[in-house]
């Protein structure tokens, strides 16, 4: 149980290949922190530097108060669950989980106690003598978790642990992981490219892009107040609609509509952003959008419309009972309380 601090951490492979740039995050004790970003954004590298599998080019990583830059992976008191699970194929489930404890030279009785405890938590009791190849994907994933649990580490690292599971199992395991986090009361650091996993599981989320940390915050905070255009576009499905606008006297003018901004902004041009749920079939006194519908997506509980307003592409969430056909012209109301405006140059949030 410990906090983890990234202090101006840089990972550089060659002079012009820097995959993690000036990374600063403080992960609190017992926190579930999710590192999320598109593939190749440096999130895995950030995790692997903490694990001790990659060297740290610049800066410091601290676990608790201890600087671990030059501490061997095995001495950092952390456990990692790999995307591929990395189970030892020739060992039984029991031996897979006992292996890290045998390496620590713990007494046999203690090893047995810990492995049995972990297998009970994960429901692996009946599979202890099986080899990994005789297990399903979900069971293998649990063995990988078990191998981490038995070590009773200060920090759990999980590198895309759900990406090899099918959609249904992924949903279940997401919930199980959260329960596990509550039971173990340990710091979890979880890497994923899936923003749904990030939103649902993280106490806080750190979003990365191109090696640079974009924003750290609670899921609500990030959803409601994205710091820049990238974060706004990355979090949320369907994606936020972005419309280029010109600004004049507190009014944003797009190709097909205009809307009064709630606050004065010192800028002449920008990108207006609003989430699908801000565009509904409820009429609005402030701004009405005339949309020509291109695609209709019915999900049962929701109905999403994708279409053109002026020359801009916009997504709307409307009542699922509303009958809309492709090619229809619909009138939609824009809820101006949740508008986002981003600077045209810096892409930073202005509202």
């Amino acid at each position, binding site marked *: 149980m410990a906090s983890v601090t990234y202090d101006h951490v840089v990972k550089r492979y060659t002079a012009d290949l820097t995959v993690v740039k000036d990374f600063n995050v403080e992960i609190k004790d017992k926190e579930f922190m999710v590192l999320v970003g598109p593939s190749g954004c440096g999130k895995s590298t950030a995790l692997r530097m903490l*694990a*001790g*599998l990659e060297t740290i080019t610049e800066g410091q990583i601290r676990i608790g108060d201890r600087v671990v830059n030059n501490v061997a*992976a*095995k001495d950092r008191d*952390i*456990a*990692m669950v*790999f*995307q*591929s*699970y*990395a189970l*030892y*194929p*020739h060992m039984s489930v029991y031996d897979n989980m006992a*292996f*890290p404890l045998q*390496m*620590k030279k713990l007494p046999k009785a203690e090893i047995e106690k810990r492995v049995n405890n972990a297998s009970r938590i994960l429901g692996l009791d009946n599979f202890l003598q099986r080899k990994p*190849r005789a297990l399903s994907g979900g069971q293998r994933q649990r063995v990988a978790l078990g*191998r981490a649990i038995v*070590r009773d580490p200060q920090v759990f690292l999980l590198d895309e642990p759900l990406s090899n599971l099918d959609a249904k199992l992924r949903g279940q395991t997401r919930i199980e992981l959260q329960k596990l986090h509550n039971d173990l009361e340990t710091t979890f650091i979880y890497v994923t490219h899936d923003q749904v996993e990030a939103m649902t599981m993280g106490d806080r989320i750190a979003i990365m892009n191109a090696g640079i940390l974009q924003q750290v915050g609670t899921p609500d905070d990030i959803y409601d107040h994205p710091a820049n255009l990238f974060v706004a576009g990355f979090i949320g499905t369907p994606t936020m609609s972005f419309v280029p606008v010109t600004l004049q006297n507190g009014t944003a003018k797009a190709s097909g509509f205009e809307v009064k901004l709630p606050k004065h902004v010192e800028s002449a041009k920008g990108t207006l952003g609003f989430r699908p749920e801000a565009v509904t079939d409820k009429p609005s006194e402030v701004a009405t959008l005339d949309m020509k519908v291109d695609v209709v997506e019915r999900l049962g509980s929701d109905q999403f419309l994708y279409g053109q307003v002026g020359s801009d592409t916009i997504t709307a969430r409307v009542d699922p009972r509303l009958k809309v056909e492709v090619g229809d012209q619909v009138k939609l109301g824009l809820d101006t309380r949740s508008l986002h405006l981003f600077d045209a140059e810096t892409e930073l949030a202005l509202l």
Partner: protein
Amino acid sequence: MSVMAQERIEAPAWSARWLADRLGGVALHVAVIGLTIAWMVPTLGLFVSSFRHLTDISNTGWWTALSPPFNFTVENYSKVLAQNNLGTSFLNSIMITIPATIIPAALAAFAAYAFSWMKFWGRDILFLALVGLLAVPLQLTFIPVLKMFNSVGLSGTFLGIWLAHTGYGLPFAIYLLANFFRSLPTDLFESAEMDGASTLTVFFRIVLPLSVPAIASLVIFQFLWIWNDFLVALIYLGGTPPVAPMTVTVANLVNSLGSGYHLLTAAAFLSMIVPLIVFFSLQRFFVRGILAGSVKG
């Protein structure tokens, strides 16, 4: 293979496509069986000849013995076995082959592990040099190595020939094993590292158990090569009965005029027994070992 078989669309009987499929299958089988037979004919001939009288061998082809009147004898075998140095040379062969198989296989496993999973200066160049050694003809090394052996008193000793076979076998052995080790997933090594396993522990507890097929196929290759080796043994051990292996003794049965040919056939067949036992008992690994690394899982 099974997937491909399932995907093939069944053509109706006697259509052109069906006929082509059938004929293709027949041609494939004819070719494979034909090649196998062609390959086996000399061995079969040797086997038949080993049961024929000297006069028959020198007058008619071995295939004539396959039709009546049958005129077989075990005299060749009893004569060969009665030669008192055949037992000694059988033991010699074992004395040479087993250590000369185990030593290079063990060394190669360590070396291949280092080449595939440890970072050290000049690793790639060393590996390249090693692969380059595969191209050096054996005969090129005889004189310098023999001179060296003579000066340190290793020629004519078993230790000398173990070292020689180790040297000749290592480049291929390391190459084969390094390629296999490299195909093991990186995550396993990283996971073991985080679990606190040392380099040696990883080698003994993870790499070796996962590499049994590759190591078994290497052992079979090396065993067969050394058991059947004539030249290296003759050069470094000499042909004297106390140290000569089977191959050398068998060759000595025939003198330059060709008499003793009937004994040669029986002796050659006797010397084949051990490799056949090794091959058939380990062939399960052999097949898997050749495929090793090409297909995961």
